[in-house]
Every structure is written in structure tokens, then in C-alpha cells.
């Protein structure tokens, strides 16, 4: 198919509605997908984007409305049927089997079979290598997924969808965990696919990406379609306005003052790889954070940023070097010590490491500072509720009440609960690992505001982020990490995307 050939509608959804108990996730949503086009879908957290995609890909079978594929009405009974009809999906959440190989994950449910009815591993591995090759992910097909980092896992997830040779590929926030380089590779691939006539449905919270790949745009708000148009000619602010339903204006102004008091000082920190004295995750790290300062740390995927924060937080007792908090040397060999020393840590993966999903907001918020809500040695529900209410208010957490399970909160609000948990401990230093991953632009802005306020109130903050614009906007000082070493340091004024990337690439 060539570019001037007319693009025709291959998938069409009419008046789709979907209700969950208590929520209407989608209401009378129409969507037309054309072949050879990237159709972007945006909307705030909870707008219904993923729900719509799950309906299109056969995950949900019960909904109102109709779906037409090539003009034929269809109703998938399960994801496998949708796949057979040529619809592949990269889910927002990773859906991988940790104890299986990359190849087994990619071919799960449609393994090639040899003459004897056994799985043909040779064929499977060859095919896997080919797909991984497209994505420039250089790992053996037999690698266990559990030994991959989040970003690599995300790429495997992409490979899984690509290997299907589908006509329609749904990508639900595929770039939330991968680095710029990989994003570039993905975009090149998308362009290639589109030129071959494949339709792509692309969901993201990173609006910049829209301009790089998008062609058509649909905006969802509170389960309703508010607009569907060509992307060309729309400004960023236009899009945000459609998403949020109002002007949110200039969304971030930095206005905190950095003091000269050093609150955290890391001296000569090294983290050897387990069992190997010559290889290191971290090597000779020296850094400091002042009161009221936001220290940004940038690095490519696997540079060791997460390890750095984890080590400061006491999760790697085998690390060498030492740490001073407000001038006093402290020995931190467990999170317990770190918290006692005044450090808080918002981890990269909020569901796996930050939250207890079975708990209510109130319980999650008080978890790290439970002493505060004790009265006569017992937990005081009144105090606990007051604490939670305070942070719900302060951080503007959208919830039906303090008793709501965190499991049912949207991503942005979950992230705020994790923040609340740490703020409640009154830390001196806050370590933030990718705090805005997967949350919508509005929530992101709120998180930036919160970071700003916290710095203003005198906290020292370390912010790890893979999004350069984000780091450039909110960090006062930027360190670049590459292969476990600090390779550059810039004050905010002197930093630029170019310089930082150059220092980051090993």
C-alpha cells in the first residue's frame, strides 16, 4: 500500500458503553480506526482509555454498543479471538510471566509445534531473535523475564505484539518505562508498520510523543468522547484543554529557594555486583543535596539510578562508602534505619514496591509512621483518619473517602498516596524514582507542584527521571549517571538536553 492510496476505516466502534459497579467507565463512545494511520487517544487517568482498548481486544465481553471490523459486526469471546482477527494489544500493565523465557512469553498461547506435537523451540527462538532484532534488544531468546529490568520487559511486551503480524496494534502507554533511545526505535518501527498499512492505536500521557508519531487524535474525558480530529494544527495547550475541560494555564512555575545547608551527603559509595569483586552497579558515587534543593538524576535505562536510591535507602547493606545526614554520619543498613535518619523513598514501581493494594488509603498513609497514630499504645482510628484526611487534602487526592482501597485508585492518585506515606514521616530527604510514570498531565503537574512545595519547605529531594523535559524543568541541579558512575553535573541554567544525553550515553 502506498501513501497516496486512500486510507479506509477498518475498525469501527459505535456507541460503546461500559459500566463497572459504581462507575461508568465509558459512555456512548465512537471510534473509527483507519489502516495505515496512527490514531492517538489521550485523556486523564481514569478517562476510560484502557477500558475501551480492552473491549476492542476481547478482554471484556460484556458492554453496550457495537464493533465492526471491515464492516462486519464482531463480538470477541476472548482475547485469542481478537488476536486471530488481527488485533494485537500491548497492555498498560506488564503482562509477562516472570519465570519463563523471553521467547516463551512472546509466543505464549500460539507456540509453534513440530511434527510430534511438541513445541518447536528452535523455530520459536529464531523468530524471537528476529523480533528482538527489530527492537534492537540484544538479549538471548532464552533469558528469563524475571532477570530483565522493567524497561526491557516493556520491550518484550512490545515484541509480543509485533510478532503477531497484526493489522491493528493497540499500544496502551508503551513508553512509560523505556528510555529515549528505545522510544526512538519504537517510533521508527511504528512509522514502518504504518507505511505497510497497519493501524496503530496509541495511548500516552506524554503529549510530546503525539507530535512525533500521531496523525489522528481522540480525546476522552470521564468516559465520553469529547473530540476526534486530525492532530495537525492542534497546540499542546489545545489538547490539554480538551482533556481537562478547562484551561490549566501555565502549568508549572518553580519558586523554591535552595539553601546552602547540606542535608544529605553521600561519600565514596560503591555497590559491587553480588559475588563479583571487580564489577560494580555503582562506583565511587559522591553527591550531596542541600536543604530546599531538587537534585535531578538522569541516566539511560540500566545506568544504576534505581540502585543508587536503593543503596542510600539501605536496601543494599553490602555497599561501601558512607552517608551523612545534616552533617552527622549515619549507618544505614536497612530501610528502618533510613527512615529513622529522615529519608523517604518513593520507588519506581508503585504497585509492587510502594503500596499495599489490599489496604485502605488511611492504612497505607500511616504505614511508615505508625507511631504517630498510637494512643495509649493502640492505633487510634481518629488520629489515623485525621492524618489521612490531612494528606488527601494537602495533595489533592481524588477519592471517595479515606476507607477506599488504594487498589481502586487511579495511577496518579496512587502515586500521591505513596508520597503521602513518606511525607507523613516528616523526612529531611526524599528520594523519588520516576514519580510521574504513567500518570496524566494534570496529575503530573500536581506532583511537580508538590515537589516544589516540599523543596520550599526545606526538604532535600533527589529526583530520578527518564524524561529530560521533566528533569530540566524542576531540578535545581542535574547529575548524569552512566554505567554506575557520575559522568557530569550541571546547574539548571547550564544544562541542556544535548549535553545531558551526551554524558549519559556510555
Amino acid at each position, binding site marked *: 500500500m502506498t501513501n497516496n492510496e486512500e486510507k479506509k476505516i477498518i475498525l469501527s466502534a459505535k456507541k460503546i458503553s461500559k459500566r463497572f459497579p459504581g462507575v461508568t467507565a465509558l459512555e456512548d463512545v465512537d471510534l473509527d480506526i483507519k489502516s495505515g494511520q496512527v490514531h492517538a487517544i489521550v485523556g486523564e487517568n481514569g478517562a476510560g482509555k484502557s477500558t475501551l482498548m480492552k473491549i476492542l481486544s476481547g478482554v471484556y465481553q460484556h458492554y453496550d454498543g457495537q464493533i465492526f471490523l471491515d464492516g462486519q459486526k464482531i463480538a470477541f469471546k476472548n482475547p485469542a479471538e481478537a488476536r486471530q482477527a488481527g488485533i494485537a494489544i500491548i497492555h498498560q500493565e506488564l503482562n509477562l510471566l516472570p519465570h519463563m523465557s523471553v521467547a516463551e512469553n512472546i509466543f505464549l498461547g500460539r507456540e509453534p509445534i513440530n511434527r510430534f506435537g511438541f513445541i518447536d523451540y528452535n523455530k520459536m527462538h529464531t523468530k524471537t531473535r528476529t523480533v528482538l532484532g527489530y527492537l534492537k534488544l540484544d538479549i538471548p531468546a532464552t533469558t528469563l523475564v524475571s532477570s530483565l529490568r522493567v524497561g526491557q520487559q516493556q520491550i518484550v511486551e512490545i515484541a509480543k505484539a509485533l510478532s503477531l503480524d497484526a493489522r491493528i496494534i493497540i499500544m496502551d502507554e508503551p513508553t512509560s518505562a523505556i528510555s529515549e533511545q528505545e522510544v526512538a526505535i519504537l517510533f521508527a518501527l511504528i512509522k514502518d508498520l504504518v507505511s505497510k498499512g497497519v493501524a496503530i492505536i496509541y495511548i500516552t500521557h506524554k503529549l510530546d510523543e503525539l507530535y512525533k508519531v500521531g496523525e489522528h487524535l481522540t480525546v476522552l474525558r470521564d468516559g465520553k468522547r469529547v473530540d476526534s480530529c486530525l492532530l495537525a494544527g492542534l497546540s499542546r495547550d489545545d489538547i490539554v484543554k480538551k482533556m481537562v475541560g478547562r484551561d490549566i494555564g501555565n502549568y508549572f512555575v518553580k519558586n523554591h529557594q535552595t539553601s546552602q545547608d547540606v542535608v544529605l551527603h553521600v561519600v565514596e559509595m560503591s555497590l559491587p555486583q553480588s559475588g563479583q569483586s571487580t564489577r560494580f552497579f555503582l562506583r565511587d558515587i559522591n553527591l550531596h543535596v542541600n536543604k530546599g534543593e531538587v537534585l535531578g538524576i538522569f541516566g539511560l535505562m540500566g545506568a544504576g539510578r534505581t540502585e543508587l536510591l536503593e543503596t542510600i*535507602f539501605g*536496601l543494599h547493606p553490602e555497599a561501601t562508602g558512607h552517608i551523612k545526614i545534616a552533617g552527622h554520619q549515619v549507618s544505614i543498613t536497612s530501610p528502618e534505619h533510613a527512615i529513622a535518619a529522615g529519608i523517604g523513598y518513593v520507588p519506581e514501581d508503585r504497585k509492587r514496591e510502594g503500596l499495599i493494594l*489490599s489496604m485502605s488509603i488511611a*492504612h497505607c498513609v500511616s504505614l511508615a509512621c505508625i507511631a504517630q497514630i*498510637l494512643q495509649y499504645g493502640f*492505633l487510634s482510628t481518629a488520629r489515623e483518619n485525621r492524618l489521612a484526611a490531612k494528606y488527601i487534602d494537602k495533595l489533592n487526592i481524588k477519592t471517595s473517602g479515606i476507607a477506599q482501597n488504594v487498589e481502586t485508585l487511579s495511577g496518579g492518585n496512587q502515586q500521591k498516596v505513596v508520597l503521602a506515606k513518606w511525607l507523613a514521616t516528616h523526612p529531611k530527604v526524599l528520594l523519588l524514582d520516576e514519580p510521574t510514570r504513567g500518570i496524566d498531565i494534570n496529575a503530573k503537574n500536581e506532583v511537580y507542584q508538590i515537589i516544589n512545595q516540599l523543596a520550599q519547605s526545606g526538604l532535600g529531594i533527589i529526583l530520578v527521571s527518564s524524561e529530560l523535559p521533566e528533569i530540566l524543568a524542576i531540578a535545581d541541579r542535574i547529575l548524569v549517571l552512566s554505567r554506575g558512575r557520575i559522568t557530569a553535573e550541571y546547574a539548571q541554567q547550564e544544562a541542556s538536553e544535548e549535553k545531558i544525553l551526551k554524558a549519559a550515553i556510555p
Partner: protein
Amino acid sequence: MTKITANLAKYQSLLALATMILVLSLLSDKFLTVNNGWNVMRQISVNVIISAGMTLVILTGGIDLSVGSILALAGAVAAGLLKNGVALESVDLFIGFTVLGAVLAAALVGAALGFFNGIVITRFKVPPFVATLAMLTMARGLTMLWSGGFPITGLGKTFAFWGTGWLFGIPMPVWISVSVVSILTILSRKTKIGRYIYAIGGNERASQLSGLNVQKIKIFVYTCAGLLAAIGGILVTARLDSAQPNAGMGYELDSIAAVVIGGTSLAGGRGSIPGTVLGALIIGVLNNGLVLLNVSPFWQQVIKGLVILLAVIIDRASAKNKR
């Protein structure tokens, strides 16, 4: 009103239990009598005590198979000390035990074995199933060694009172089990460690990152389970006025059943002690009812299995409707 309904719905098993009680009281006029009520309560009290401890263990995502054996060992230790004391021949010393002394020593033994379980699980990273299965075997062996395979009997009125006596019109075992349940309910709901137990079962890694000392809490929980099994053992012994080396066999399954029927998830993090009490009640009422109805022992097993299935199915269905 709706709040009450919501609260009741939490104990999903209530409906199943109510149905059972209704059916049984229609089938037998002996069932819904005060006496029989005490009967059931007394009969489930040991299971309730053990299962309360088991609930804590399961809430952390673990399991304890050793409760039955620890029960037997603690019973034998209490009885042995009470009856024979300890003779240290080498130093020509004889230590006699009062009832209180013997009970405390037995409780200590139970707690110590539970502690051992905890250490093996946390420090040596042995899966709880294996660690406590090994303890199941070991504690049974120790019981046999301590008692020589013989029951220890004739423990006196004071001791027997704890198993057979009444206080203010309520049987002693019921007092004890109610106390245990109350304490553990408060512990699990109103104390720091209780909250931590739920947290660990909900997400161990996140708990660790929130500064909880996961190992210490797990050790606490297994120690608790051991201690409560020991209390159960002391009660059984007092009730029978005799420590049986075979006591408590298979109790681990009964107790896990009470916990799971009571709505606590074996994956940890979700459930409650009162739910477990309901689970134990369902099993207890069923056992009692089948006997009252004169069902033949072979059929009893078939019916028991079916009713438990049905209870859980009703339960899960009603839980689904509530959400």
C-alpha cells in the same frame, strides 16, 4: 442500618452459618437448646484458639502445619511436669511444679517451638510449609519421647478445672477461647504489630520498603501460633484429665479449614480473626448437627464435605452480590 449490613457482609460466612443453624433446628429439636449451645462452644474452643494463631500466620502469607503436634507436646509437658516434676539426677535435684508452673512451662515450650519455626523460615529461608511440616514430625517425636508413648493421667482437680469447670455460668474453655479471640482481634486491628501483619501479607516488599522489620514480625507470628497451640494443648489435657501422645493429629487441616472458610485468603493480607471464629463455628455446628441427626459415620463424611463446599459457595456468591 446499611452500615450494619455492610459490616455483616464482611463476615461473609454468616449467611452460610445462619442457613445451617436454621436447617438443623428444623431437623432436630435437640439442636437449638442452651445446653447444646454450650456444647458446641466448648467443642470448638480448642480449634478456635489454634485457628486464631493460624489466622495471623496465614495473614502474613505463611502456613503452620505444626500446631497439632505442638498441642500434643505442650499437653504432655504440662501433664508430665505436674505429675512427675523434673528430677535432675546428676545434681540430685528434684523440682516439683504447681499447676501454674506446669502451664507456664508448657506455654513456653509451645512458644519456643513456634519461635524455632520462625527462625527457620526467616533466617534460613525455608518455605513455611516445609519448615512447619518438619516441626510437625519433630514435635510429635518429642512428645513420644517425653511420654514414652503413654498417656499421662491423674492431674488433679485444679488442673482439670481449666478444661471442665464453669465460671459465672460459662464453661472455662469458652472463657479462654473468647479471651484469646478478643486479644488477637484487638492485636490485629488496634496495634502496630497487627497492622504490620496485614501489610506483610499484602505486599512483603512494600512493607520492607516502608521500614517494617519483616523478619521480626514473622517470627512473632509463628511464636504466637506455637504459644496458642500450646494453650490449646493445655486445654485438651485439662478437659480429658489426661495428656494423650496422639492428641491433635490432623488439627492443622481443621484449623486451616476454619481460617479459609472464614474468608481469610491463603495468599495473605486479607481476612480477620472474627471470620475465623465463624469458620470454626460452621465446622463445629456441622459436626454437632450430624451427630444429633444420627447420621451414620460414613455418610457423615460425605455430607460434611458437601456442606462445607456449599457453605463456601453460598458465601462467595453472596460476597459477589455485595460488591
